[in-house]
C-alpha cells in the first residue's frame, strides 16, 4: 500500500512541474468548461470560477484536476449527462453540478467515470440528478464528502446516488445522499470500503450490494429509506457500527440479506424498522453486539439459513423479537439480552437460569396470516403467547437462548 502511495505521489508530482493552470470564467478568454478541457493537457489544473455554466456531455480524457471555486455551477438543463471521465489519475473537487436529464434508456449521470484508475471525486454538490456518480470498470477511486440528491418519485424515474459497477478498491466516504433510488449501489464491486455516509429518504435502499465480495461498510447512518441496506448474492461482507433507523413501511427492512455467505454484522444499531434484519438464504453469518430497539420484528428468517450465530445482542422492546418460516437448522442464539425475558438469576452469574424462547406463537400465526397482526397487543394474544410459552406446541422448541443475559451489554 505504501509503495502504491509513493507511486501515485510521483505520478502526480512529476507532470506538475510542467503543469499549467487554465481559468474558466464567464468573462474570461475561456468561458466554457468544454473549451478549457480542449486546451488542457495531462497534469493541468482547470479552475472554474464563480458563474453559471450551461453545458452537458463534457467528455474528459486527460488526467487533469477540475476544481470548482465557490459559486461555480454547471447546469445540464435536464438535457443529458454532464461530466464524463474516460481517463486515469484525475481529480474533481468543489463543483456544483445540477439538473441531469432523466432518461429511461441511457443512464445519465452528473459525473460518469469509465475505465479509470486512481481518481478522486470530492466536495461536490450534485443536485436534481438522475444518477449522481456513475462508475464503470474502474479501480481505486475515492469518493468523499459529496452531497448528492435527486427528485425522483418513482423507482424507474430515478437513479442512484453513487452507482458503481464492476470495480475494485473503491472508497465511498462521508457523503450525504438523499431523494435518490438507492443512496449507494454496488454491483460486482470487490474490496471496497463505505464509511461515514449519511443516506436518507431514498426510494429503495440506503445502500445496496449485488454480487459484491470482500467489502466493508461501517459508521454509516441509514434513515427513513424505503429500506435501509440490502446485501444480496455477496460474500465476505463486513458490516459494523452502522445505524439503521426509521425504515418504517409495509415492506421495509433495516437490513435485507439475501443469498449471502460469511458475513459479520456487529455493533450496529437497528431502531424503529418494520423488520430490523430480514434474512433469506444466509449462511455463516455472525451477529454480535448489535442493538435492536423498538422494531416491528427484530429478526425475520426465511428460507434456508445455516450457521447464523446470534451472540451478545440486545433485543429491546421489539414488538416481535423473532420470526422463523422454516426449520431452525444449526442457527444458534446465545448470551443475548432480551427485554421481554422474565426469568430469574438465582446463582447471580448474570445469566438467566431458564432459557428464553424468542419466537412467540403470535409471530408464528402472523407468518401464516399477516392480517392477524390486527390483534397485536390484545389480551387474547397475550394469553395465547403465555400458554405457548408454558408448553410449546407450534413454535420450534429448539429455538432458544439457553443463557440469556440479565442486563443489556451494548449501551
Amino acid at each position, binding site marked *: 500500500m505504501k509503495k502504491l502511495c509513493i507511486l501515485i505521489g510521483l505520478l502526480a508530482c512529476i507532470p506538475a512541474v510542467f503543469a499549467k493552470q487554465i481559468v474558466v470564467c464567464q468573462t474570461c478568454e475561456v468561458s466554457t468548461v468544454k473549451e478549457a478541457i480542449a486546451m488542457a493537457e495531462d497534469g493541468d489544473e482547470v479552475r472554474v470560477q464563480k458563474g453559471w455554466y450551461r453545458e452537458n456531455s463534457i467528455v474528459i480524457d486527460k488526467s487533469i484536476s477540475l476544481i470548482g471555486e465557490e459559486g461555480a455551477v454547471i447546469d445540464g438543463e435536464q438535457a443529458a449527462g454532464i461530466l464524463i471521465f474516460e481517463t486515469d489519475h484525475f481529480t474533481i473537487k468543489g463543483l456544483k453540478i445540477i439538473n441531469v436529464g432523466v432518461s429511461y434508456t441511457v443512464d445519465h449521470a452528473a459525473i460518469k467515470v469509465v475505465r479509470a484508475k486512481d481518481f478522486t471525486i470530492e466536495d461536490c454538490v450534485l443536485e436534481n440528478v438522475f444518477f449522481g456518480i456513475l462508475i464503470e470498470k474502474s479501480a481505486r477511486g475515492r469518493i468523499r464528502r459529496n452531497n448528492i440528491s435527486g427528485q425522483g418519485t418513482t423507482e424507474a424515474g430515478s437513479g442512484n446516488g453513487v452507482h458503481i459497477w464492476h470495480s475494485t478498491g473503491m472508497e465511498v466516504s462521508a457523503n450525504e445522499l438523499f431523494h435518490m433510488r438507492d443512496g449507494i449501489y454496488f454491483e460486482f464491486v470487490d474490496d471496497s470500503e463505505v464509511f461515514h455516509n449519511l443516506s436518507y429518504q431514498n426510494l429503495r435502499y440506503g445502500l445496496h450490494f449485488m454480487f459484491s465480495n470482500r467489502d466493508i461498510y461501517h459508521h454509516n447512518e441509514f434513515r427513513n429509506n424505503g429500506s435501509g441496506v440490502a446485501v444480496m448474492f455477496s460474500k465476505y461482507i463486513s458490516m459494523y457500527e452502522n445505524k439503521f433507523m426509521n425504515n418504517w413501511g409495509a415492506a421495509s427492512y433495516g437490513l435485507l440479506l439475501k443469498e449471502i455467505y460469511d458475513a459479520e454484522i456487529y455493533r450496529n444499531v437497528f431502531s424503529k424498522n418494520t423488520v430490523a434484519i430480514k434474512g433469506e438464504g444466509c449462511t455463516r453469518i455472525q451477529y454480535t453486539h448489535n442493538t435492536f430497539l423498538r422494531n*416491528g420484528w427484530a429478526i425475520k428468517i426465511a428460507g434456508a439459513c445455516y450457521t447464523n450465530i446470534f451472540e451478545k445482542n440486545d433485543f429491546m422492546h421489539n*414488538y416481535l423479537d423473532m420470526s422463523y418460516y422454516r426449520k431452525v437448522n444449526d442457527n444458534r442464539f446465545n448470551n443475548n439480552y432480551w427485554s421481554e425475558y422474565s426469568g430469574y438469576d438465582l446463582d447471580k452469574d448474570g445469566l438467566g437460569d431458564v432459557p428464553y424462547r424468542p419466537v412467540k406463537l403470535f409471530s408464528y400465526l402472523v407468518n401464516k396470516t399477516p*392480517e392477524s397482526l390486527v*390483534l*397485536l397487543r*390484545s*389480551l*387474547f394474544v397475550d*394469553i395465547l403467547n403465555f400458554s405457548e410459552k408454558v408448553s410449546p406446541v407450534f413454535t420450534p422448541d429448539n429455538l432458544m437462548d439457553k443463557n440469556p443475559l440479565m442486563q443489556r451489554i451494548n449501551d
Partner: protein
Amino acid sequence: MLKILKYSFYDLMRSRWSYVYFGFYLLLGFVLLFLNNDVSKAVITLMNIIIVLTPLIGTIFGVMYYYNSKEFTELLLAQPIQRSHIIRGQYVGVSLSLTLSLVLGLGIPFVLYGLFMSAAIFDFGLLLVVGAFLNFIFVALSYNIALSTENKIKGFGYAILMWLMLAVIYDGLFMISLLLFNEYPLDTFSLAATMFNPIDLSRILILLQLDISALLGYTGAVFKKFFGTSFGMLSSLLVLVLWVWLPLLRMNWKLKKKDF
C-alpha cells in the same frame, strides 16, 4: 336528570371504591414513570392496562351500582321524575366518576413528570379519551344487563361474561376465522370485525398513533388507507360514540316496559 346525576356522582365520589380505583391509577402512573422515566414508553404499557382494565372495572361498577341502589331508585321512582331520567342520571354519574378517577389518577403523575413538554401529549390525551369512552360504553352495557336481569348473581355473571366475550373470546374467534379463511382477502373483514368490538377498536385507534402503525400497513392496503387518514380516525371515534348511543337507546326502550 342533572340532579340525579349530581347526587349519584357525589355519592360515588365519596365511595371507598372510587378512591381505590383512583389510587390504583395514581400508583400505576408513578410506578410506570419511575421504572422507565420515559413518557412515551409508559404510554404503550398504559394502553395494555387501559384496554383490559377499564372495561372490566366499568362493567363491575355498573352492575354493582345498579343493584346496590335498587331500593333508592325505587324511592326516586315515586318522585315526579321520568324514570329514564333517573336511570340515565345514575348511568352518567357512574361513568363520570370512573372517568374522573382515570383521568386524575393517571394525569397527576404524568403532569408531574413533564407531560406538557413531552411529544407524547397527544398520544396520552387519546389514551384518556379512549379510556373515557370505554368507561361510558361498558357502564352502559352493564346497565343494560342489570336492567334486564332481576337476579343480582345472574346479572353479575352475565356482565362478567360480556366482558370476557369482548375482551378475549371475540379476539379468539376473530383469530380463528382469519386462520381459516386465509386464502381470501381479509382486509375488509378485519376492518369490520374491529369495528364491532369497542375494545379492539380502541386498541387499534391507539396503536395507530404509535410508530407501530406502519407495522399494520403490513397487513394490507385497506387497513393502512383507512386508519392512516384522519377520516379513519374520525369514523373510529364516531363508531365509539355509536357504541355508547346504541346501548343507551336499548336502555330507554327497556325502561318503557320495565317493572321495578
